[in-house]
Every structure is written in C-alpha cells, then in structure tokens.
C-alpha cells in the first residue's frame, strides 16, 4: 500500500515531465516567453527596461536565482531542453518538495507527507496557478512552505533568523509581484502563532508578538536591497495603474461568483485553461473526494485549538478570496477604496488562494496525522486523496494544459508543451545576428499584449507573450505599448501607422510582419508592406518577413527638420 501511495503521489510530477522526453518544450503563458536568456538579460537585467518605448525598472527582484542559472547554462552551451527541464523542476516540483519537507518536519510521517504534498502542489487550483508558467509569481507556492520549513526546523537554533533571511534573499524573485508578496508575508506571519502552539501547547501572546516582530524585521532587512528602491519608485509604479482601474478589475473577477463556494470545495475556483476546467468533471473522482470531505468534516476535532486555528485561517482566506462579492463584499470594497495601496490586491481570488490551499493542506495533514484509525484506515483515506489528485493527470497526459479556440470555424489548439517552427527560430537568429539600434514594429497589431502564433498546419498554436519578440535582443513595439503610453488608437491604424513621422519619432528601423499571428483578441489592421517604396525586404522565413524602413532615424538623432526657437532657451 505504501508503494502504491508513493507512486500515486509522484505520478503527476512524472506526467508533467514525460512530454519533454520527445521533441517538445514547455513554453507559453505570461511567464515562459523566452528561448534565449542572453536576450532576456539584455532587456531586463537593468535599471531601465528597453521593452517597448522603454521604462524604468520599478521592481528590482524581477530576475532571480533561476534566471541566473539558466543564463549560465546557456553560456556553457547546454541545450535549451536542459534549461527547460530545470525550469519545469523549479516551477512544478519545488512546491511539492518544499511542502513535503515542511509536513515531514511537522509530522514525521513520510507517506502522509508525500500524499498531502501531492495534494498541495498538483490539485486543480495549484496546477492552474502554475500553468501561467511564471517562475517568478508562481514560485510563491514553493517559497511559502520552504521558508516555514526553515522556521520550524531551526526554531531553536541561534542561526534561525540568519538562515530564514538568507532563504528569503534566495527566493526574493518569487516576491516580484507585490500583492503575491503581501499574501505570502501574511501567510508566514499567521503561521507563527500556530507553530508556537504546536511547540508550547499554549498561546503566549507577548512571545508570539516578539517572534512576529523579529521575523518581520528579518524579512525586510534581507530584502531591503529591492524593497527600498521599489518604495522610491512607488509613484512610477502607481502611475502604471489607477485605483479606479483596480476596482473595476476586481469586479471583473466576479465571473467566478456562480457556485464559488462549491468550486472552492473542489479546489477548482481558479481555472482558465479548458483542460483544467474539466479536471474534476469525472464522477469517479468526485465520488472519492466527496467521501473524503464528508469524513473530514464529520470527524474533525472541533475542540482542538490547532484545528480551530486552521479552520479560521481557511475561512479568512475565503473571505478575502471573495473580494467584493456578497455577503461581506462591502468590507473588501471599503478596504479597496480607503486603505492606501490596498488596491494592489485587485485579483483577490488568485492571490488569497495561496494561503487558502496552504492552510487547507495543513488541515488535512494534521487531520490524518492525528486521527485514530478505529473506523477507516488512514491509508484508504490517503488513497482517496491520491485518486482525486492523480487521476486527471493520467486521463489528460500531455494535453494537461490544453486550450481550444474557435476563429471563423477553425479550431486552434493551444498547448504549453509544443514543438517550435524552424522559420520562427531562423527569424529570431537573423534578428539577433544584426546590430539594431532602433525599434522593430510588429505587425499585425494585436489588441492585447498576448498573441496567438500558429506553429504548424495542424493549427497547433502558441499563446502568451510572443516568444519571437521576447527572444531577440532588439526592442519591439506592440500595440499595448502604445495603449499603455496613452496614445489614441487611431494614430496607429492603417495609413497612419506607416507615416514616416511616426517611424522617426519612435526610431522604428524595421517592421516584422508575422502572418502566423492568429486574430485572438482582435487586430488593429493587417497591412501589406510589399511594393511600398519606404520598405525594403531584408529577410523572409516561412510566414515571417522583416522589412527595413528606408528613411528611418536611429535611437539617437540630431533633428534635421524643425527645432523650436532655440534662441528662447537662453
């Protein structure tokens, strides 16, 4: 039985790796958009990002240890496949390992820890969160249990705060997103009273307060290298978003309100890929899970402070996850409107799901760890959890991250495991081989920063931030850069966009026409540049063509036309 449980718990991890054994790589979403880490560092390892029109770096922990490892491996000529596999390990397996370390430290039971770790990492909610493939944001799922493992293991050591601080430094990249950092920070702080109770079997509030103060101080001390510059950039960062926008964004997440509580019960309240949406739609899976939940609710020791605290934490997380939705939404609404900077928590359902799944997993861990086996063997209960978690992985296999879209009666299949098109690689290599000082305008212009790029004749597509533009050293201009800058859209439509004045203003040296782009969120226009005098074709690969703008300014110029009354400057 132990072997069966171990295999079942590790099965999702194994299935996540299997597609990489063939010609596929993991790529897509908002997080994994580069196949060239030198280009990535060229753009983002700086106080100034050259992306689009260029903007100051306001979050200094954007690049972390994993990115540095990837760059070193790339410089050492390791293939992208190796780098990609390490990416998969850090993204998907580290949360599993971290939670296992914490739960084993707390219970000293291997199999229980293994199964609950599988639940923590591979449940519908977590895998949906990880499916964005964002190693900075999503690594918070591994950072939380790992930091708490350090805290629990070295609680009585004089090196506790040094080690804790060092690990926060090591994982500072996972604090890149401020609201995620806030959610993680409070999850850590709220674990301290719980840990204190586990050790001392009582709550001494003065001592708990001291521990919280020390830990808070250490987190800020070891992370001041990015917190301080970020605070100094607050006005810049807040210029990126208004509180009105945040409030309307929060309201847009209410699409989940139908049956939200029921969804939370099945851990599938946060899902956006069509495959993951139907993860729990199998009766067999539902049956085992419902049985387990029924057993949990019926047999939980409601008199134990430990369980009361964990239930309180879960309810608190649900309260915040629901945001401005009824019945208590008015409180969250007031927080958004009147608490300074609280508007950063504009996606509560996503951010507060991390403490929710963490404390929910802890509840199950302690429930199984402490229950007396007079009715049902614990291993049977663990098997039920395993079935609930692992069966969808067996069913979906390499279609785990599948999303289907219909455009004009054509179905496009977006997968995270994909095989790249040679013409795309060859265009990336060509652009990187040239020294381009100006910008490259990408056409057709999408109405979103994400694009859908056709990879083959079977209509398999890449969806996410374009890996073509993001894998080159050159600076690309997309429509969302212009929208961000507050330009009116009509300036960039058809004939306007080809105006020489516009090209010179923004130092557009090249235009890349990518006819593999699929109209996903909508286009501004398709423009055919062939035959136009001002554009000279310099390279073509498959459906991609690169044009040089004949009379373009470079990034630095001395105006040749019209300068405003210079004499007035005196």
């Amino acid at each position, binding site marked *: 039985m132990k072997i069966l449980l171990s295999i079942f718990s590790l099965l999702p991890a194994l299935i996540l790796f299997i597609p990489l054994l063939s010609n596929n790589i993991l790529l897509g979403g908002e997080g994994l958009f580069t196949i060239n880490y030198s280009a990535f560092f*060229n753009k983002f390892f*700086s*106080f*100034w990002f*050259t992306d689009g*029109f*260029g*903007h*100051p770096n306001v979050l*200094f922990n954007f690049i972390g240890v994993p990115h540095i490892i990837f760059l070193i491996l790339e410089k050492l000529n390791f293939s992208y496949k190796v780098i990609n596999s390490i990416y998969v390990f850090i993204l998907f397996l580290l949360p599993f390992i971290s939670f296992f370390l914490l739960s084993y430290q707390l219970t000293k039971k291997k199999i229980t820890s293994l199964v609950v770790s599988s639940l923590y990492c591979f449940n519908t909610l977590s895998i949906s969160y990880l499916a964005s493939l964002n190693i900075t944001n999503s690594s918070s799922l591994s950072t939380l249990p790992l930091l708490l493992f350090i805290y629990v293991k070295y609680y*009585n*050591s*004089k*090196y*506790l*705060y*040094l080690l804790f*601080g060092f690990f926060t430094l090591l994982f500072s990249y996972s604090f890149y997103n401020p609201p995620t950092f806030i959610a993680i920070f409070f999850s850590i702080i709220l674990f301290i009273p719980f840990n204190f109770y586990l050790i001392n079997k009582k709550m001494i509030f003065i001592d708990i307060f001291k521990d919280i103060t*020390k830990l808070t*101080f*250490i987190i800020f*001390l070891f992370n*001041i*290298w990015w917190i*301080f*510059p970020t605070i*100094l950039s607050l*006005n*810049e960062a807040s*210029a*990126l978003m208004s509180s009105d926008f945040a409030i309307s964004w929060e309201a847009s997440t209410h699409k989940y309100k139908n049956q939200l509580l029921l969804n939370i019960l099945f851990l599938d309240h946060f899902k956006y890929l069509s495959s993951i949406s139907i993860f729990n739609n199998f009766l067999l899976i539902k049956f085992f899970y419902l049985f387990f939940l029924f057993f949990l609710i019926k047999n939980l020791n409601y008199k134990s402070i430990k369980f009361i605290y964990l239930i309180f934490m879960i309810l608190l997380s649900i309260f915040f996850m629901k945001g401005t939705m009824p019945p208590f939404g008015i409180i969250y609404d007031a927080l958004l409107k009147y608490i300074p900077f609280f508007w950063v928590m504009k996606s509560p359902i996503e951010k507060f799901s991390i403490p929710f799944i963490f404390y929910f997993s802890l509840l199950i861990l302690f429930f199984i760890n402490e229950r007396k086996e007079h009715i049902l063997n614990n291993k049977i209960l663990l098997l039920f959890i395993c079935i609930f978690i692992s069966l969808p992985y067996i069913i979906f296999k390499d279609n785990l991250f599948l999303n289907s879209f219909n455009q004009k009666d054509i179905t496009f299949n977006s997968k995270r495991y994909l095989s790249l098109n040679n013409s795309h690689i060859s265009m990336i290599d060509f652009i990187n081989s040239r020294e381009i000082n*100006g910008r490259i305008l990408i056409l057709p212009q999408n109405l979103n920063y994400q694009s859908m790029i056709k990879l083959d004749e079977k209509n398999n597509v890449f969806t996410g931030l374009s890996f073509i533009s993001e894998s080159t050293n050159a600076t690309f201009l997309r429509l969302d850069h212009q929208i961000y*800058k*507050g*330009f009116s859209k009509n*300036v960039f439509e058809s004939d306007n966009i080809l105006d*020489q*004045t*516009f090209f*010179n*203003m*923004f*130092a557009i040296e090249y235009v890349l026409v990518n006819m593999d782009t699929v109209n996903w969120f909508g286009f501004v226009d398709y423009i055919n540049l062939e035959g136009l005098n001002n554009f000279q074709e310099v390279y073509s690969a498959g459906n991609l063509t690169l044009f040089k703008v004949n009379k373009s*300014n*470079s*990034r*630095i*110029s*001395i*105006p*040749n*036309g*019209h*300068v*405003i009354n*210079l*004499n*007035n*400057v*005196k």
Partner: protein
Amino acid sequence: MLLKNNFFYYLIIFFFNLNVSYAEYIKNFDKVYEIFKKDLTDDVLILLNSKHKNFNEEQGILINNQLYKKGSDFIYHDLKINEKKIFNTLYYLDVSNLNSFDHDYLPINFSESYNPHWSLIELNDNFDINNLNLIRHFINYFKMKFRMNSEYIYLPNQSYISNNFSNIFLINNTGINERSFLIYYKKGFVIQIFWICLILLSPLIIYFSIYLNKTKK
C-alpha cells in the same frame, strides 16, 4: 543625537531626491501628432513646455493645459553621428563635422521614454569606448560626481521632452569639430551606491540576525 538624526534625515532625503522618477504620460498625443503631421513631412520636434519656464507661453499652443511649442527655424546640417548601445542605461554617440553646424545649441534627440534621470556626459578626447565596462563607467562617473580626475566631463545641458515622447538634450555648440558623449540613466548609479553600502554592512546584518535569537542554542 541631533547630528545623528540629521545625518539619517539627509541620507533619506538624498536618496529620495535622487531616485524619484516617473514615466511621463503622453496626453493629447494624437491631437498634437495631427497638427504636426500637416505641416512637416520629416522629423518633428515638439517640446513640452509645462515644466520649463524658459519658453514664452504666449507663442505656444495650449492644448488641455499642456503647452506645446512650435517654431519656424529650420536647421540645415550635415552631421555624422555614430551611436552604440552599451547597456540599457548607457548609450555612446560621437558627432563629427560639427564645424558645419552654425548654431549656438546642439539638440541631441534620444528616442526613449522621457525620464528626468537620463543625462548627458561628455567624454575626454582620448577615451577608448571599446574598453568601457560597467566597473570603469561606475568609477569614472563616481569621480566626475565628486569632482575627481575623471575621463568624463560634466556637461551643462537642458533636457526636455521632445516629440511628446523622447528626451532631447540641448548643449552648447563649442565649435569643436568632433565630440563624443554618453547618455546615462543616472538613477542606476544611486541604487548601485545603495547596494555597495548594503554589501559593506552585510557583516553587521549577519551579526544582528544571529543576535536576534542568541538566547537559543
């Protein structure tokens, strides 16, 4: 005690003042664009006048409280510009044939989002750009800032928003035929100084983090 308080006060003010930065939003871009598109076919410069009182407001065009200035002087020149990106925060350019440029001011347009922290530095004649790296730049910039013997020359200049988007530096035309410059995002220097201070203080941070739990074994 007072001295100590003042020291930290000035330290915070120092870093704050040097760091406050912003991404300039572009308002009424399309309106201004349309106006200039009608008049000019080549390069267009629009100087945002809202923050600089040197311009005469009466001669400007006022659009929703954003003042844009349009003049009528044409400058003809035959300058040769050589540019090179060194880092995202550091660009090199040299300009030759400046003898042909018979104006008091030399306008250098840098097509990157306007930010007040972009600055222009002039280079010594014998400066070898091929040997420029991050450390050499930092040392030279540090020396220039603290008026030590640097390969960089402080260059008085005025910077504005041009094209309603990019940075324009106006410098004195000294009549020298060839000049070379660096365009530098100077906020990076302040943060580098801050990080160096942190690294120097790291033994203290380590000691303090052990001291916090010293009662434990």
